[in-house]
């Protein structure tokens, strides 16, 4: 039996999950803004506090989870508290957890949803090296008046370009939560992420 199954979840399961849910909703409604999530009682090996709180809030028996190798120790914790199936293929996942963008496979391997059911797309949760500092990025899209700036550590141009390729598939695509310790920032599929000096697209 996996040892992380014997770690407690939220200190106050109902209210912490409600607070986290509200914060995650706001995070997707206002991309780029950084929110704080109530952390679980104890550190969970393989997941940051915000990523673990997100899992406790959103993941259940109907949402298969894919874990990148460095998140794998959290499998027991997720199975016990969320009752979710852990899948080995990214294609089957509703949520994918990774530590660093480099750990994600090619993005097209995840479920992108269909024209009729775009909500079947996977949600990625990536623990970044830094949030609120690190690389400056310009965000545009729904939920942002004009444009806004955010800072995410460990994002390279190649990954951003791969994500930008998915814009053409809208309404299909991938929603992303970037976490760092207890903080989280939502980047839904509609948000365009660009380096600050790149020329604006038409």
């Amino acid at each position, binding site marked *: 039996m996996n040892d992380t*199954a*014997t*770690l*407690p*979840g939220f200190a106050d*399961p109902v209210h912490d999950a409600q607070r986290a849910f509200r914060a995650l909703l706001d995070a997707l409604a206002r991309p780029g803004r950084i929110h704080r999530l109530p952390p679980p*009682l104890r550190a969970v090996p393989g997941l940051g506090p915000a990523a673990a709180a997100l899992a406790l809030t959103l993941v259940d028996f109907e949402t298969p989870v894919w874990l990148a190798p460095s998140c794998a120790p959290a499998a027991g914790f997720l199975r*016990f*508290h969320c009752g979710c199936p852990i899948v080995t293929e990214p294609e089957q996942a509703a949520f994918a957890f990774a530590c660093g963008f480099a750990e994600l496979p090619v993005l097209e391997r995840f479920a992108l949803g269909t024209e009729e059911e775009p909500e079947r797309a996977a949600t990625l949760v990536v623990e970044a090296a830094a949030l609120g500092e690190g690389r400056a990025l310009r965000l545009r899209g729904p939920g942002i008046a004009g444009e806004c700036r955010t800072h995410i550590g460990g994002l390279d141009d190649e990954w951003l370009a791969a994500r930008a390729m998915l814009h053409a598939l809208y309404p299909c695509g991938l929603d992303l939560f970037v976490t760092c310790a207890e903080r989280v920032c939502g980047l839904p599929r509609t948000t365009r992420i660009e380096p600050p000096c790149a020329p604006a697209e038409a």
Partner: protein
Amino acid sequence: MMQNPHDDPAIARRRRWMGVLAQAPRETLERAWRRFAAPPAFEWLRRPETGLVMTRGRAGGSGRRFNLGELCVTRAAVRLEGGAVGHAYVAGRDGRRAELAALFDALLQQPTLHDELERELIGPLAEAAHAAREDAARKAAATRVEFFTLVRGEDA
């Protein structure tokens, strides 16, 4: 691969005491808990939560499986300071009963306490449950009606 849990004697033993605890009256568990001079320290893995589980049945024990109905169940999970984890699933909505059953499940895994608890708590509880079942069976048996059909002789 995982071995079949039914073959593991340790699991069989734990399953037995968990079954006994799940059916134990709350007062008995409270009394046993109060006997500890210093109640063992523990932390919650899962506070008591109540939900419904679908119970399944088989007609005659071997027929096709069918859904018998939903049962209200409260579950809880605790971890003692030493690391032993206790789980409980008890019928009904009594959170405290689930809590105590989970605590005793964890305590029964401690070699230092196991024999004493088995003797003082599980043994008497199992006997009481057995006696109650026998009693109910006896009362039911006393009301049994035997039907006789008279042979009318056409086949003879």
